[in-house]
């Protein structure tokens, strides 16, 4: 579980650092959403708890959209 949280910690700044118009961010966000969904199933933690454990800070819009990504299964 700690390895997954470390991976999440490393992935989220990469997603935030993409140039928005380049089109890469949704793919990375989809990976993050999938990773969070997997951690939720394994640990029973909420999205907020997982993000806090990973040391990730999101604004309200990002958090809502990430929750939607998780709900939609990232396609």
């Amino acid at each position, binding site marked *: 579980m700690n390895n997954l949280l470390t991976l999440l910690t490393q992935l989220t700044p990469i997603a*935030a650092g993409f140039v*928005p118009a380049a089109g890469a961010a949704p793919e990375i*966000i989809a990976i993050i959403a999938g990773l969070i969904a997997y951690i939720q199933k394994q640990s029973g933690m909420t999205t907020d708890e997982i993000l806090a454990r990973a040391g990730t800070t999101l604004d309200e819009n*990002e958090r*809502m*959209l990430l929750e939607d*990504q998780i709900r*939609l299964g990232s*396609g």
Partner: protein
Amino acid sequence: MKSRAVLTALLILLVFTSFSFKCDGGPPPDNSPYRNAAKAADDIAGAINAMIKIKRTLAQQGTLKHDEELALTNLLLKVNTADKEFLNAVQLVKNTGDVEANKPKLCTLFTALQTALNELNTSGVSPLTDATAKGKLASAFTTITSFLPAVTGVLACS
């Protein structure tokens, strides 16, 4: 006589105290021309939040298909990221006043925001099949774009 001296001393103290307030003064007035651009970027973030909530409501009502909502979610994320980066850059310029050095970066980030918004409209809102959902999300999109002139009025990008 003694009370007069005390009164004079108090008056002098009051004058010096008022001077000290004027000298210290707090932060300088925020009269940067980029203040409106920063406010617009902040307003855009609020309008994005409103559009996310409308999208969620429509999805709960079943008027958005899974793939339509997923596309909107991805595109809104792009717009939000672009707006956040632009807001950070504008606030830096607003606070430092270093316009010339940062203008190319501001223009690049603003172009990225406009590109992300165009994509949200053409690939997210326009293809929607349900007319009611399309109308509500198109209205939310228009609200977002209504804040753009406040930026273009300040930031003249060639």
